[in-house]
């Protein structure tokens, strides 16, 4: 099983990649670790005729403290998040979630910028960044802009990134306050049937695989902030969601999982 034919160019810098995106338009895709894009190309779910390899841009691979935030280069691999001392000390949730993505071989290749740009509602890390209230730094021909994670995802595999923009950095607030991640699946290395990320004791609650994007459980967050019990807040976790239906679960079951997992996550985060 091989992808349809395409041309391949190695980007020498982020600016070079952006320039190439401008030249090739919607025929082109950026290739980072390739662990989402290459399978999609094999299944002909994506058929770009031009791949621009940004996976070799080592200057976009870093994790560093930056004024109350942690700045993470877009090409930082999941395995680097998993073993980062900076994250262990200042953002353990992101480290923990990174270690649950796929399997070790996948984590040697997959990148944080790549998984955000791919915008799969079933992925772990986008929901974690969303719960943390992270920021995505995108670069285009006219410079950089910062996009709140709450504004970033727009639909299945879609984000606000323009055709000629690439993610260069992800910022998450430093913090170790009550956090938890619940990933429910039946087999090792599967995507979550439903996942729940809780950050900052419940100020940030986000849901995996409960709609066309990773989403915040706003009703549950607000109830908690207004003094509701964990049980009462968790009961609202599936409100305003549109869960997908597939062989693993129908929508009603996913809604049930969202409520149960939110309760577990909140209890663990505040335990």
């Amino acid at each position, binding site marked *: *099983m*091989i*992808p*349809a*034919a*395409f*041309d*391949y160019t190695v980007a020498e810098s982020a600016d070079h990649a952006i320039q190439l995106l401008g030249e090739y338009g919607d025929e082109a895709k950026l*290739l980072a670790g*390739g*662990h989402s894009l*290459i*399978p999609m190309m*094999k299944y002909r779910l994506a058929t770009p005729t031009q*791949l621009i*390899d940004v*996976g070799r841009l080592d200057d976009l691979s870093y994790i560093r403290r930056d004024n109350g935030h942690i700045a993470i280069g877009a090409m930082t691999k999941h*395995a680097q998040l998993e*073993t980062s001392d900076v994250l262990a000390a200042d953002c353990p949730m992101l480290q923990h979630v990174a270690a649950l993505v*796929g*399997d*070790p*071989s*996948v984590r*040697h*290749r997959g990148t944080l910028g790549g998984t955000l740009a791919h915008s799969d509602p079933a992925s772990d890390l986008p929901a974690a960044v969303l719960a943390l209230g992270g920021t995505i730094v995108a670069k285009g021909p006219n410079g950089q802009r910062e996009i709140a994670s709450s504004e970033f995802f727009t639909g299945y595999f879609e984000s606000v990134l323009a055709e000629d923009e690439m993610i260069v950095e992800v910022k998450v607030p430093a913090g170790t306050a009550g956090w938890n991640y619940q990933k429910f699946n039946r087999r*090792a*290395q599967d995507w979550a049937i439903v996942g729940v990320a809780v950050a900052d004791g419940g100020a940030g609650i986000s849901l995996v695989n409960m709609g066309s994007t990773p989403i915040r459980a706003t009703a549950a967050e607000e109830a908690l902030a207004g003094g509701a019990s964990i049980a009462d807040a968790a009961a609202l976790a599936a409100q305003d969601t549109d869960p997908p239906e597939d062989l693993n679960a129908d929508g009603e079951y996913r809604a049930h999982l969202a409520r149960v997992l939110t309760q577990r996550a909140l209890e663990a985060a505040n335990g």
Partner: protein
Amino acid sequence: MDVSMTVNGSTHSSDVEPRTLLVHHLRDGLGLTGTNIGCDSSSCGACTVHMNGESVKSCTVLAVQADGQDITTIEGLADTARADGSSTGDMDWHPMQEAFQQCHALQCGYCTPGMVMASVSFLKENPNPTEAQIREGLEGNLCRCTGYHNIVKAVESVAGGAS
């Protein structure tokens, strides 16, 4: 497209189509058929090789992405060279290969090259794992025969031996 990579210590330059997968390049281009193709979708791990010392699933890496990189396949794990560079003529098995044999960590053998490569990479990153960590560390490699018990024992025995 011209690519050049180090495979098991030797440099190989080839002309490949950009869509060529690393596993096809290794098997069909370089004749290294020890790396197997299983699911073709980065689930089963039969095609696991090392890229710069880390396990990767070579069905989900393009040969062009491996340009300039250092690849090790199952054929490169055993050491046939003496310290002075001359050949022993015999395979000097890697400790993990030895352990798979001693623990009978295989039946049909199809997953074995990938399982061995994943195990070596795992132990490099986790030198003193618990049994549970070994099982989680090998979650990306499927074996349909053994039920995994003897594979885990083999990895445990190498970890124990190393400590």
